[in-house]
């Protein structure tokens, strides 16, 4: 696991992809930060946290799309899968590497918080920390989904698009629940909604069930990735 993690992380930073990812993320969130917190003088960072959802929905599939597709295309998966390591540690190595790049990106929120504290002299630290935790969970869920899709296809573009569609599905599903008449189905749809669960944190509510929900999503998709790799072996 350690070897794969280190290799992936290095590959991210030797290619432009990690830098592009981080730069775009900084620019996008900084616009919100400057607008709401610096210009309007709000001490509440909830807008800056909420805006991250949209940009991550687009950016994270780009970060995860090459993780397994390239291995298959270059046949380097033959090296990984014939080495004495289990599939779970292969998947975890890659998952953690992508999560690490993602955490580099969201670390900028700490800077925003410090700047805001310096400007206003006041900050609800507990809310900010709770929000950051939620953001990590959300991003890791997106990464787990992207990783799973990349294990299913050989094309990076297809992987990116399909990951985006799946994330979009989880984003939209609770909005669509209003038109569903069946009670139990509506409950399911509402409870699967990523955005409402994430947005709850930015209102200052640290909800343990929501954290458990995201952890479950991460676990399920990483598990599916292992199964997908296993299935390819048996096909």
């Amino acid at each position: 696991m350690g070897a794969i993690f280190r290799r992936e992380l290095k590959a991210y930073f030797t290619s432009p992809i990690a830098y592009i990812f981080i730069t775009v993320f900084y620019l996008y969130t900084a616009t919100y930060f400057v607008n709401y917190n610096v210009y309007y003088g709000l001490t509440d960072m909830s807008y800056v946290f909420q805006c991250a959802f949209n940009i991550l929905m687009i950016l994270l599939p780009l970060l995860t799309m090459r993780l397994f597709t390239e291995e298959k295309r270059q046949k380097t998966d033959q090296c990984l899968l014939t080495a004495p390591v289990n599939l779970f540690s292969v998947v975890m190595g890659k998952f953690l590497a992508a999560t690490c790049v993602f955490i580099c990106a969201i670390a900028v929120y700490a800077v925003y918080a410090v700047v805001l504290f310096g400007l206003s002299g006041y900050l609800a630290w507990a809310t900010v920390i709770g929000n950051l935790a939620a953001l990590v969970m959300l991003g890791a869920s997106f990464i787990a989904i992207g990783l799973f899709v990349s294990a299913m296809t050989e094309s990076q573009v297809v992987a990116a698009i399909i990951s985006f569609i799946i994330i979009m599905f989880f984003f939209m599903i609770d909005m669509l629940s209003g038109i569903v008449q069946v009670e139990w189905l509506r409950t399911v749809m509402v409870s699967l909604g990523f955005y409402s669960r994430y947005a709850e944190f930015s209102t200052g509510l640290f909800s343990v069930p929501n954290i458990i929900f995201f952890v479950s999503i991460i676990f399920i998709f990483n598990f599916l990735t292992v199964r997908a790799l296993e299935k390819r072996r048996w096909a």
Partner: protein
Amino acid sequence: MIEVQNLTKQYGAKKAVDSLTFTVNDGEILGFLGPNGAGKSTTMNMLTGYISSTSGKALINGVDILDDPINAKKNIGYLPEIPPLYLDMTVKDYLNFVYDLKKCKIPRKAHLEDVCGLVKITDVYERIIRNLSKGYKQRVGLAQALIGNPPILILDEPTVGLDPKQIIEIRTLIKKLGKKHTVILSSHILPEIQAVCDRVIIINKGKIAADDTTENLTKNITTDHRLIARIDGAREEVLKTIKGISGVISVSADMEREKGVYDYEIETKEDADIRRELFKRVAARNWIILGLKSSEMTLEDIFLKITMDDSFELKMKKSSGYKEETASADEEKFSAEENSGKTADENSKEAEE
């Protein structure tokens, strides 16, 4: 030691590998021979645990590759058909990565130096793999397989893309490795197998067509004896005379080599040595033998014969399929020729560099 029992791989209705059974003993170099698409790579992928078998067993040093893949894989170094290289890494980073991946216990620096020295890649150690020539990439792939000193090496066409000098070096290296390791290597280059391997398994259409030592294979299959005699004399008369010798099955004259000199191909019965009789009769007529040699079957002939025989069998079973079979066999021959042409091209290219 590798034990394979009824190993089968099925893709839909097609059996890519059809119940292979064989054993490779410690310190043996086994050659896998077969036309493209015969199932060599599929078999190797199953032995290394990259893909699973549909049925059957593969034991690596007594450990089943499907039951306990991690312990089985610890014993194997694998060089696939396309070396699994991360093009954006340097050779150094890549080999260190493989070292970590295999959880090697041998002291790192000395071991990597040893391996690089063995396959002669020390001079490109710091370079990015993408920029290496095909020969170097192949050797980095080989180095990757050697890391950790696994007791079993499985090499899928290890000399593809190398220049003649490198090919000889790699062959010598494999022979050397064969003293301590169990080696399986596949190839469709026959002299290579002949030069390196103790034993050959010829695979055709997923089945074992022959399994024997290289010498035995050459001996056993050469049931028909052929002589080629270059004789200066009147063509029709010579033919008639040779036919008169007891033990001769057939004789045919080749094109005219010099004025009045022809090559005669003589097929004789088994155990019939007609060389002395031939000399006497020809001398009695005052013709002159300019050359006489027995045409022994090379592994190449055996290979073609075995793969062709199979198509003859098929012809018996279903007459319609025959034409396709021979056509594909011809293609195989062509592709082999193309390959040899290609290596020549690459050689000149490398020489230019």
